[in-house]
């Protein structure tokens, strides 16, 4: 079965939203710890981050949000953030406290695979990555590889990136790990198209947008993704 990961920005409503996403069929929840200068993010997640910071969602409240989300969920929870937060908090301390609060792993958007090798995390690979770097990322990653489907930042796009097929093909030759595709996937059609070649999809910006309409809207949206992705699984299995 293909996996669906849903990204949500940490905030007061996040535990309830995460439950709704899982009810709708999400397998993994990524929890955004906002940073003031998020280089990898497009406008939607950037604005969500600005709002979260304005509401006081600094590292400690985000860890509390993670713990609160964990209380009612068994699904993997993965904080996604930027190196500056870990620099300030301490890399080891951050990893330990996140794990204590219920984190399954960690994603750091601006920490390439050769930086901080001691920090166990899900590694990202991009269409521009060389085979050597993909192999290193596969060796060091925590369970699965996050395939960035586009050269660009997060956010909805038309269609599905033509780079994805080639990246999957190259990566499959180097590792047997599950490959989840993210960046630029927003519609059920795009999710289905990505799931045809990848083992899972990550949906961020569109989920963050819909989350502003509340848990019910998010559950329905994730259900539509689930249905689309499962139709592919049924055909390919």
């Amino acid at each position, binding site marked *: 079965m293909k996996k669906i990961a849903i990204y949500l920005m940490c905030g007061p409503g996040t535990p309830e939203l995460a439950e709704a996403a899982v009810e709708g069929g999400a397998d993994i929840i990524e929890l955004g710890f906002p940073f003031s200068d998020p280089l990898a993010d497009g406008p939607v997640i950037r604005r969500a981050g600005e709002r979260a910071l304005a509401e006081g969602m600094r590292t400690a409240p985000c860890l509390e949000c993670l713990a609160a989300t964990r209380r009612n969920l068994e699904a993997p929870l993965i904080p996604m953030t930027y190196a500056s937060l870990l620099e300030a908090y301490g890399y080891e301390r951050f990893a330990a406290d996140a794990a204590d609060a219920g984190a399954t792993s960690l994603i750091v958007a601006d920490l390439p695979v050769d930086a901080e090798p001691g920090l166990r995390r899900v*590694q990202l690979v*991009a269409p521009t990555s060389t085979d050597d770097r993909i192999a290193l990322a596969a060796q060091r990653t925590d369970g699965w590889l996050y395939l960035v489907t586009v050269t660009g930042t997060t956010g909805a796009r038309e269609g599905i990136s033509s780079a994805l097929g080639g990246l999957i093909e190259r990566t499959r030759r180097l590792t047997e790990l599950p490959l989840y595709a993210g960046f630029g996937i927003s519609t059920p059609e795009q999710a289905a198209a990505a799931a045809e070649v990848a083992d899972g999809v990550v949906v961020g910006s569109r989920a963050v947008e819909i989350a502003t309409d509340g848990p019910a809207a998010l559950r329905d949206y994730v259900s539509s993704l689930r249905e689309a992705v499962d139709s592919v699984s049924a055909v390919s299995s």
Partner: protein
Amino acid sequence: MSAPGRTFGEYGGRYVPETLIPALDELELGWREALADPAFRDELEALGRDYGGRPTPLTLAERFAPGKRVYLKREDLLHTGAHKLNNALGQAVLARRLGKRRIVAETGAGQHGVASATVCARFGFDCVVYMGSEDMRRQAPNVERMGLLGAEVRPVEFGTKTLKEATSEAIRDWITNVETTHYLIGSCVGPAPYPKIVGELQAVIGREAREQILASEGRLPEVAVACVGGGSNAIGLFAGFLDDSSVRLVGVEAAGAASLGTGRAGVLHGSRSSLLADEDGQVLDAHSISAGLDYPGVGPEHAFLRDTGRAEYVGAGDEEALAAFRRLAETEGIIPALEASHALAKALEFDEELILVCLSGRGDKDLAEVLSR
């Protein structure tokens, strides 16, 4: 801790999304090849001389600082009116070697944007400059200049709508268009190898100044002083004297943007350095009358030089800078940029007699700001 790419002790590195790493590798290789190629150095020297106006003069400011010997390294006389051209010319030649014909750049006050637009016009490159909408309002003449030079200025509406956000947005453009685009960063900041590239391209300032002051005075200066925002004119000046342990190196930050004086170690725009950030690593806003110093980060080499003690960093407030601005205009007939006015303000306070100041740019752009006070 010695992560790959840490270039200056604990500082530097490459804290960027994976997408950019191959481009940074390509840039590093291209830069090393260029440095080893005499044709590259020859072309750069010819451009600096015939197009830029190098070497820039060294001027003794006797009326500005009576009883002392204060020399001004006149980067204000370089084409486009600031040291920024040294870097823009060098990176344009590098971009051409890499086969990139689209340039993105960020700008605060507009001086680096103008330098970028200038070299793109000269080389026939497409040029997109990101600029905070607040800075566009404050620095309207430079926006007009960039337009005349054929560049597209894209307003950035996020956050403080100033240099910090413009830099982030330029990097995002680069992430998106990395196959065709060179990011022409304006200061000795950003992921490796940018701080080194910019530092080496600006080192011409210190090289010339050292020769010139030896020719005039027969000795080295006791102090070399420059303003520090991102820190490129200072790193360029210091480069000429790093090995001369008798020369005090002093960087002057804006008091409200003292990344080195009051900052903490953190990560911004791709490198680890000293920056204005809170205890959670969230980057704080800087405040200065001078848009060019209004940046919460600083080049990683400066953080390194501070920690090793080779250079010292002090702050100057808006009022001190304004006073020095007026004093240089009235005593020497030179209108300095507000950025360089911070260095001028401190130059008057040293006990030493022979002082070298980098006059990094001219102040025409600042008239409206100064006259409104």
